[in-house]
């Protein structure tokens, strides 16, 4: 069992958990992810590695309760644990291979949408530890859903906020804010890293293509094993089929077929949704007939 040492609620239905997993903590690098299984009957759920501490042997993850398994995860408390906790998986971010000179010369912009703040955090932290201050845009529906703002501000002075309803920071889409920063305020970025919902990454990619800035996206595809064994995570990048779990999760955003990726994310959705309805009915105490 992989024990939960700390749990906190960041926003409604969004939890941060520090988990004891020495092997994963020891090996993790920015950009990688892991897979958890809550219990005997749970699904294999891919999650972002949000932070890791090799010395303490802990990994911090982030979970939004949306499906049957994630709801059971959210119900776990400090002292409980995960049946399984596998990782780190996937390739580390490309930037960790940069030479110190190249790092110093590169101006990074991270665009984090919603839960995307979690995978962005270790990258910005990794850079800050090497004296590189990246720019960050955190995008959210409203003020209450902005994640990690203080943590980011502790690492870099250039943290920009965008909310759909304008309850905090810039009112509007992250893409518009990005454009404004570049076109109107004359900021120069050499590399944009976009992590968030597929639809956001798609539009960031379109925007940066226009602006001529190389861009990386981290793809949260469906996954089963996370090791290249099943192909559930197939994405088309540059016209070729790639397995996001082993060749990604980060890819050149200008080459990714986001429309296909979004469609494939929905492959099991109807079934999941039906299952959730059934779960709700079961809890409500009457029989259901969902005819799977």
């Amino acid at each position, binding site marked *: 069992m992989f024990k939960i040492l700390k749990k906190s609620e960041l926003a409604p239905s969004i939890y941060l958990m520090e988990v004891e997993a020495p*092997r*994963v903590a020891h*090996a993790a690098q920015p950009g990688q992810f892991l897979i958890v*299984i809550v219990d005997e*009957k*749970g*699904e*294999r759920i891919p999650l972002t590695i949000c932070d890791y501490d090799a010395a303490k042997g802990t990994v911090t993850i982030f979970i939004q309760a949306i*499906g*049957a*398994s994630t709801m059971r995860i959210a119900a776990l408390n400090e002292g409980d644990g995960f*049946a*399984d*906790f*596998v*990782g*780190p*998986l996937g390739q580390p971010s490309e930037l960790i291979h940069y030479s110190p000179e190249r790092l110093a010369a590169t101006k990074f912009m991270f665009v984090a949408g919603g839960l995307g703040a979690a995978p962005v955090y270790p990258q910005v932290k990794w850079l800050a530890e090497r004296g590189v201050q990246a720019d960050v845009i955190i995008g959210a529906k409203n003020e209450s859903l902005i994640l990690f703002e203080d943590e980011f501000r502790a690492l870099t002075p250039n943290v920009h906020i965008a909310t759909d309803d304008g309850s905090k920071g810039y009112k509007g889409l992250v893409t518009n804010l990005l454009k404004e920063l570049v076109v109107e305020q004359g900021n120069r970025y050499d590399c944009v890293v976009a992590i968030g919902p597929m639809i956001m990454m798609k539009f960031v990619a379109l925007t940066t293509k226009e602006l001529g800035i190389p861009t990386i996206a981290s793809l949260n595809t469906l996954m*089963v*094993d996370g*090791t*290249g*064994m*099943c*192909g*559930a995570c*197939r994405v*088309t990048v540059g016209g070729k*089929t790639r397995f996001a779990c*082993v060749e990604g999760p980060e890819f050149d955003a200008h080459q990714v077929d986001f429309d*296909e990726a979004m*469609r*494939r994310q*929905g*492959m*099991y959705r109807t*079934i*999941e949704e039906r*299952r959730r309805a059934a779960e709700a009915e079961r809890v409500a105490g009457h029989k259901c007939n969902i005819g*799977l």
Partner: protein
Amino acid sequence: MANKIPRVPVREQDPKVRATNFEEVCYGYNLEEASLEATRCLGCKKPRCVEACPVSVKIPDFIHCIVEGDVAAAARVIAQDSLLPSVCGRVCPQETQCEGACILGVKGEPVAIGKLERFVGDWGREQGVALAEAAPHNGHKVAVVGSGPAGLACAADLAKIGYGVTVFEVLHRAGGVLQYGIPEFRLPKERVVGPEIENVRRLGVKIETDVVVGRTVTVDQLMDEEGFEAVFIGSGAGLPRFMGIPGENLNGVVSANEFLTRTNLMHAYDRQYDTPIYTGGRVVVVGGGNVAMDAVRTAKRLGAEASIVYRRSETELPARREEVHHAKEEGIDFRMLTNPAEILGDERGWVKGIRCVRMELGEPDASGRRSPVEIPGSEFEIPCDVVIMALGTSPNPLIAATTPGLETNRRGCVEATDEGATTREGVFAGGDAVTGAATVILAMGAGRRAAAAIDAYIRSKN
């Protein structure tokens, strides 16, 4: 004198009933049936069956023990050469190995060696026949990567002679293909696979699941930081192949590995488990091997109308003959000499059919099989909701890519000698990781040979 009776039939679940459940298809022999079947063996002086067995199980000897009424002795005879009789008795391609060579097969039906082996394995397990004890710990540690038949066999043999063995497995359950690939109705997990793994644990072997060798820890770290003197790589051939035809990324196209992993490892067929599976109403499985048969019969059991599409003819089907026979009984539709050209999608990007072309057999190719040739203008469509690709698999490159000095061949297989020595000192390999997708018995044999080589290697260094 051998008994000249016909081969004793084996009891099976009714095809109509079993096509709707995941219970085991074949019930196997009971003591009476096994004893009777055993009397058919001639006890040949030069047994052709043994020659045809990849690990040379002493077949007439164990059969003789059954005739004598001493099943425990039979179990011990098999144990000299095979670690997994209950598994191999169920999944070995006997018709091309022992039974294919049996002298009785020349004129009539061969001895049911597989069914007898299964009987002995099951009996031994159920009666708790103790087969091996671990020698006292000799102070040396060996790491095994992968808990499939190759890894388990290697680990068990090393533990028996006193090594401290840890098996590292990436999935959350041990067993490799026995766990995630071969379905419950052919190889029961709790009744057969679980106890076999338990036996290996009982020898003192530690199995650490959830470890991705190459990511969580590298082979070098295992040797340099964790004190393992040798490493055995039995990581299998788990990478699925796709055809590269248009439409393969539509919703509803999955690899057989994904489909089978969802059902077997993740229990998607059981509503108490969270993992979803999708079959729509009509499923087409592309391929003709064991994996294809397992996928199509699983789809049928999940309620789909299920078909096999295979580009050669029935005689070339690489699957075990018994599986093809069972699949037909269960109402699987076989479309032979048919090759997919494109997968067709609806406006929302979901599979709605598969466009195929008819084939005819041409001249025999290098492998001796007659290669299929397209018949021009023969294209037609099969409507369906799901397409499952069962086209074969290749080894995962992860370990080779993260282990300097470990060489692979063009097909991505680890280069290794018959004894399992690789191009890296102290690193051994065997099973599907070396041969590409093959069989349980070959993997098990390779694991055992490597165990002997690892023992010799560690002795030579100390």
